[in-house]
């Protein structure tokens, strides 16, 4: 029996279902804490959380923290992406250095890099740069490995054809390697957005005087669970916004890519 046509292409139905899921979740949370099935002291209360967030914006006290965190995140994201792109292209095109650096890169990548936070705090102080440094080390590897892979997967036929058309090595870079790597970069940027936030918030949490991570730390210190949750939600919203911005750029730059269901021989 097919009672409901659950068609994933039906945007209205999908959005409505999402809204139901969200409000259902919040309602259960509210119910549990209001009925004291869960202690509100530890689990917060959605209404108070909402009030707290609105209050922050009305009083304006959150703007400095939000600005700091966003600045750190965007800078970490930008610098990490640029470095990952540059080093990825360079290593992918120089097999010797790729071979030489391979074990070191693997070591750095498998290392739990959040551990660097205290070291960066010592090196760069408690200002924004220690957080940016942490974010960069996180973002860099995600982008780097994708670019490296992207360049390696360039279709040899497309490459040979472009060389036959007379492309110099700089032109090959611009017309073949870079665009080919870009589709990999964009898929990695979605991960990188979340990771960049991790870098700044963890950095702030470990030692800072402003930023959303700092707000969360203060709230936690006085067992103000509602403010902690409000801070987390605020970060989530901005991570989603940044992710949407990446998607927007992706749609603009990747217009050549076939949509799902279409096939393309040369990019395979």
């Amino acid at each position, binding site marked *: 029996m097919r009672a409901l046509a659950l068609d994933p292409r039906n945007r209205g139905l999908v959005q409505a279902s999402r809204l139901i899921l969200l409000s259902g979740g919040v309602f259960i949370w509210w119910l549990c804490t209001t009925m004291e099935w869960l202690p509100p002291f530890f689990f917060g209360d959605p209404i108070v959380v909402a009030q707290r967030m609105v209050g922050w914006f009305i009083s304006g006290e959150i703007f400095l923290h939000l600005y700091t965190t966003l600045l750190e995140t965007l800078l970490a994201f930008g610098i990490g992406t640029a470095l990952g792109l540059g080093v990825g292209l360079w290593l992918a095109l120089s097999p010797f250095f790729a071979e030489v650096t391979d074990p070191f890169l693997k070591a750095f990548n498998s290392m739990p890099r959040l551990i660097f936070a205290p070291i960066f705090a010592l090196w760069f102080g408690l200002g924004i740069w220690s957080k940016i440094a942490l974010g960069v080390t996180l973002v860099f590897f995600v982008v780097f490995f994708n670019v490296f892979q992207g360049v390696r997967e360039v279709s040899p036929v497309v490459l040979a054809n472009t060389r036959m058309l007379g492309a*110099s090595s700089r032109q090959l870079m611009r017309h073949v390697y870079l665009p080919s790597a870009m589709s990999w970069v964009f898929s990695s940027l979605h991960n990188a957005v979340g990771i960049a936030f991790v870098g700044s918030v963890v950095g702030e949490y470990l030692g800072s005087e402003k930023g959303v991570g700092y707000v969360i730390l203060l709230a936690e210190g006085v067992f103000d669970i509602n403010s902690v949750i409000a801070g987390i939600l605020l970060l989530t919203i901005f991570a989603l916004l940044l992710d949407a911005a990446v998607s927007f750029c992706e749609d603009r730059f990747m217009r050549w890519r076939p949509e799902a269901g279409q096939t393309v021989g040369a990019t395979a």
Partner: protein
Amino acid sequence: MNVLKHKFAEQRYPASPTINFDAVTCAFASNEGGGKTYTAIRDVTLTVNDGEFLSIVGPTGCGKSTLLNVAAGLMRPSSGHISIFGKELQGGLNRDASYLFQADALMPWKNAEDNVAAGLIFHGTPKAEALEVARDWLVRVGLDGHGHKYPHQMSGGMRKRAGLAQALALNPRILLMDEPFSALDIQTRQLMENELLQLWAADRKSVMFVTHDLEEAIALSDRVVVLSAGPATRPIAEFDIDLDRPREVADIRMTQRFLQLHAAIWDVLKGEVLKSYARTRS
């Protein structure tokens, strides 16, 4: 027939070889490893004359593409020499040639126009001018109005047309073609073959056309070279195709002379195909 052939021959070749293979051998490291080598082609001596349409036929996997790659400069021979217009090709790419690959070779991130213009831009033509030439070529290959489509939005035949435009837009003196139409259905293929002949007739570039389809080879060419089964492939026979031009590829297949030539060449080719088949089975 013989008189005609002779006349044609004089008119066609002013006797300067465009591409000259001199005892070219290409050996690769074998997949089996252990220092074994696989010799794709051995001691190939072959000439493509100026303005000649030369087809190379042979069984599958006999190293036909290797010959083209050597002529293009994409691959260096293990021994022997390859010269283009009398100059030996050493290390670099063959700058006088355009290469039409068997697989799709358009840049998937550029639309048809930009793909065709790319070669000109690489050679320093200003962008606006290159795009104008590209549009002109797209019209000539029958892609008028499809210039803004990306490769994945085009059919296999359209991609081949765009590829042809890309290769011809550079106005090369040599055209290397590696089974360019093998992936197309038979109707599209015959249309493309006719169009290729028309485009070629305009300025008679030297063409080296690799195919496994004997009918296609005869219908298009001035001369057909038969390669032996691999490994260590070499040319074993060549036939002058004395069919009148201009040709209509679908009709010419029905003529008496075509059938005679086909029978004669197939007689040689059949043995190699059977050898190659026996090898792949064992």
